[in-house]
């Protein structure tokens, strides 16, 4: 077995040193009746065989890069520079542990400090943590944090919030004291959707959770929501599922957010069929001690040299146990590194540039959809994603287009079954989309409709 270095002779001499005859003497605490069960699984395989087996499985899937691709709704196909993957595969990053021994983990700690700063700058907030599992779990943590800050229990979810995020919030809080008020999605009238949020804020409200751009692609000015929330001493939580949008659209911080959570996948991380991704969590200085998750802070070593450590850990489970702010233990270290490396390559200039290419392609997509008979575009102000109304059920159209080699988007019914949105399709166009792709999509759609 290529991963196991001990030889039979090694094992024998080690057993002798320990003073037992047989390996099972070391398993004597395991009840005899259950020791060494028959395991009906194949025996070991050579590297080449495993690769062949898994490659065949992978070959049954349609890779996003191989077709005209417009699928978004919370996960986005972007170009990740080759150097990102090279750097995160360095063994010193890949095979390190959580930096609990800071003298030999300054590489990890410094990039976390850079990550925290980048996320704070992008979101327009004071501070960010070292990352969460993903955007949806970060969203649930934001609701819990708002309860701790305001000592109120009612959280309002705007209709613009991704259905899965809403479900994660509802599931996560189902056994806590939190009360979740979820509003209906209204892709045809985002202003009305926002007004419904404002109207729902009352003196019991801990926070309102609004997604921008919304799940149907709408970009909105959230200042009126921020004002309404703050007037009632509630917090505004802004969710960003497409972090690339922060290169074009005003930041949540500029619009008055108190907590910003996001899915950072778009920068540095591939689609990966849903994970691993990287959750972003940022807030203002005054709420730092209510934040969940790991935090890295600057300090000095015994020689006065600048260095970094994990800090404020008394908030966390390994110290507070049942009184912790969250049960979260890990972050998404390596995905955060990918984010930071890609963000460093982009810089402010590249981020703005690539974001604008996304926007340009989305405009081209909108124009092409407008030109298709029977299709209504529902999204006027957007970043790289739009919702369109089709003359028939979107799910069937998406499948028919997939058979023609075009992955056209996410039918709203897949996220909002039973909400009367069966004819709505959510479509994204990132920098990876070409003019040809849009032509092929348009032609195929006209055939299918």
């Amino acid at each position: 077995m290529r991963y196991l270095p001990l030889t039979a002779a090694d094992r024998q001499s080690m057993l002798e040193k320990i003073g037992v005859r047989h390996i099972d003497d070391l398993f004597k605490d395991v009840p005899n009746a259950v020791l060494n069960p028959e395991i009906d699984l194949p025996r070991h395989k050579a590297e080449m065989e495993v690769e062949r087996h898994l490659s065949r499985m992978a070959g049954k899937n349609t890779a996003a890069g191989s077709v005209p691709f417009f699928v978004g709704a919370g996960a986005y196909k972007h170009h990740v520079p080759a150097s990102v993957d090279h750097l995160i595969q360095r063994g010193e990053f890949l095979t390190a542990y959580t930096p609990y021994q800071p003298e030999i983990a300054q590489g990890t700690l410094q990039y976390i400090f850079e990550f925290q700063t980048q996320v704070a700058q992008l979101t327009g907030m004071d501070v960010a943590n070292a990352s969460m599992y993903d955007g949806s779990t970060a969203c649930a943590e934001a609701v819990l944090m708002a309860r701790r800050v305001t000592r109120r229990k009612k959280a309002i979810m705007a209709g613009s919030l991704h259905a899965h995020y809403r479900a994660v919030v509802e599931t996560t809080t189902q056994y806590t004291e939190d009360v979740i008020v979820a509003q209906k999605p209204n892709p045809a009238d985002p202003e009305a959707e926002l007004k419904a949020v404002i109207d729902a804020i009352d003196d019991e409200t801990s926070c309102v959770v609004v997604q921008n751009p919304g799940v149907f692609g709408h970009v909105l000015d959230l200042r009126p929501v921020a004002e309404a929330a703050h007037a009632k001493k509630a917090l505004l939580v802004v969710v960003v599922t497409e972090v690339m949008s922060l290169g074009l659209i005003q930041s949540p911080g500029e619009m008055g957010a108190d907590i910003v959570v996001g899915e950072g996948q778009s920068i540095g991380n591939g689609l990966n069929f849903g994970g691993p991704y990287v959750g972003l969590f940022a807030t203002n200085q005054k709420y730092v001690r209510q934040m969940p998750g790991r935090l890295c802070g600057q300090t000095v070593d015994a020689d006065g040299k600048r260095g970094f450590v994990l800090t404020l850990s008394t908030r966390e489970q390994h110290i507070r146990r049942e009184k912790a702010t969250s049960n979260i233990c890990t972050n998404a270290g390596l995905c955060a590194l990918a984010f930071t490396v890609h963000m460093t390559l982009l810089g402010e200039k590249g981020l703005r540039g690539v974001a604008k290419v996304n926007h340009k392609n989305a405009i081209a997509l909108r124009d092409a959809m407008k030109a298709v008979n029977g299709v209504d575009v529902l999204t006027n102000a957007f970043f790289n994603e739009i919702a369109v109304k089709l003359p028939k059920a979107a799910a069937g159209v998406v499948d028919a287009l997939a058979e023609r080699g075009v992955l056209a988007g996410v039918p709203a019914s897949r996220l909002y079954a039973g909400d009367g949105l069966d004819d709505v399709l959510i479509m994204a166009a990132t920098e990876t989309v070409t003019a040809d792709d849009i032509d092929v999509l348009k032609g195929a759609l006209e055939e299918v409709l």
Partner: protein
Amino acid sequence: MAMNSQGRPTAATGGSDGKQFESFSGHVGLRLAEPLIFELGTTETTGVDYEDTSDLELSCGGLERTGEIGCPGLAEPDTVRHYTRLSRRNYGIDMGVFPLGSCTMKHNPRLNEKVARLPGFGDIHPLAPKGTVQGAYQLMDELSHWLMTLTGMPAVALSPKAGAHGELCGVMAIRAALEARGDAREVVLCPESAHGTNPATAAFCGYKVKSIPAKDNGRVDLEALKAALDDTVAAVMITNPNTCGLFENEVREIADEIHKAGAFFYCDGANFNAIVGKARPGDLGVDAMHINLHKTFSTPHGGGGPGSGPVVFSDALKDFVPVPYVLKTDDGFDIVEDQTGKSFGRLTAFQGQMGMYVRALSYMLSHGSDGLKQASEDAVLNANYVLASLKDVMSPSYDGPCMHEALFDDRFLKDTGVTTLDFAKAMIDEGYHPMTMYFPLVVHGAMLIEPTESESKTNMDQFIRSMRGLAEAAKAGEVARFEGAPYHAPWSRLDETQAARQPILRFAAE
């Protein structure tokens, strides 16, 4: 003759004497100083090329971001150099023995990295039309089959994103099952030696947490557990093998008592790596157990994640698993995404950590049933070898045999002036990552050593020599070797008090 004389001297001169000279650059040879990117880059520099869109008319509702963002960039050469330099300040499994107890720092096979990056896995969208990702569902199904077979459990939820998330999944399923029978109950019992996530999780699910004591032999006190079990107890959370590195030899009696009281047995599977192929949690009466794919099945720790924490369930809980889950149908695979029936809900936006599933399955296929069992045996053998080789100079907390990790406490350091922390830092100077220190909390000055199966006997013998040397040095009164250690790491000890008193959590230009 041709006098082809060499232009440079070839004998070794110099040596350590020159170390007194400070460099002009701030670098020290291969130890390269490296500032933050915010001190290096500029907002006008970028390491990517993109299409010019300067004359584009925007369609974003007049909400264009115009102010400075504050994220400098670097061109590719400087980016590669910056992060390469940072990486060299880290210790990883690739560099040496990493005996961090409870964390299972085993070798990360590179095949797993390669296959996870196949476009058919790495470049597919979680909401892509189902017909275009059948191979991905198949992979999830095959992984599920391996996990269920190895644990002897009839159901699995793959989506939890880490061990603690898996605990949440398990306890939520338990609560959902209890509520379904109209009996939510109030209390979860955890041993004193539990991971901090256990009580945090139970509290999160609305339960009061009560502690159960351990016996002198480091196992759960069955009599005390019996006394604490009544019809208010929802679940008992026990790590097995436990956090002291010991197998709970009365686990079947424990399970029986839990079930007799109408409660559920949650097993923290953090240490499943000791018994894969040797014993199945399903045979031990477990109702739910999370499996840390990043420990047991060797997906990389990555400096603190991403993890992955699938949960296996018994028959009593299998109807309550969260969405989404994959179903095998007559014409391929389907995925259930909407909460229906008894499912307790959804824990994450998509399917969970697909990238980790691919790596874990690759690891399992490579080992096979025979190799997985051998890996468990080798992990236990290596840990017992450490225990046997150090027991005369250090103080083992319990008599052997242990499972995959050996627990020592600080009795052997009594009156030496050396603490567990000092001892750990001195290991850094020996070229090792320290063992886990001060956990579990049930012994004083704990040192938990988990060598894993990845270490050869040569590596083990070197490590043992080093540990014996340190233990003897401490007893011989060489306090100076320890109290300021590490002396040879890139950084000396860092001031955690200052970091916490005046938190600086981001770069700010002065």
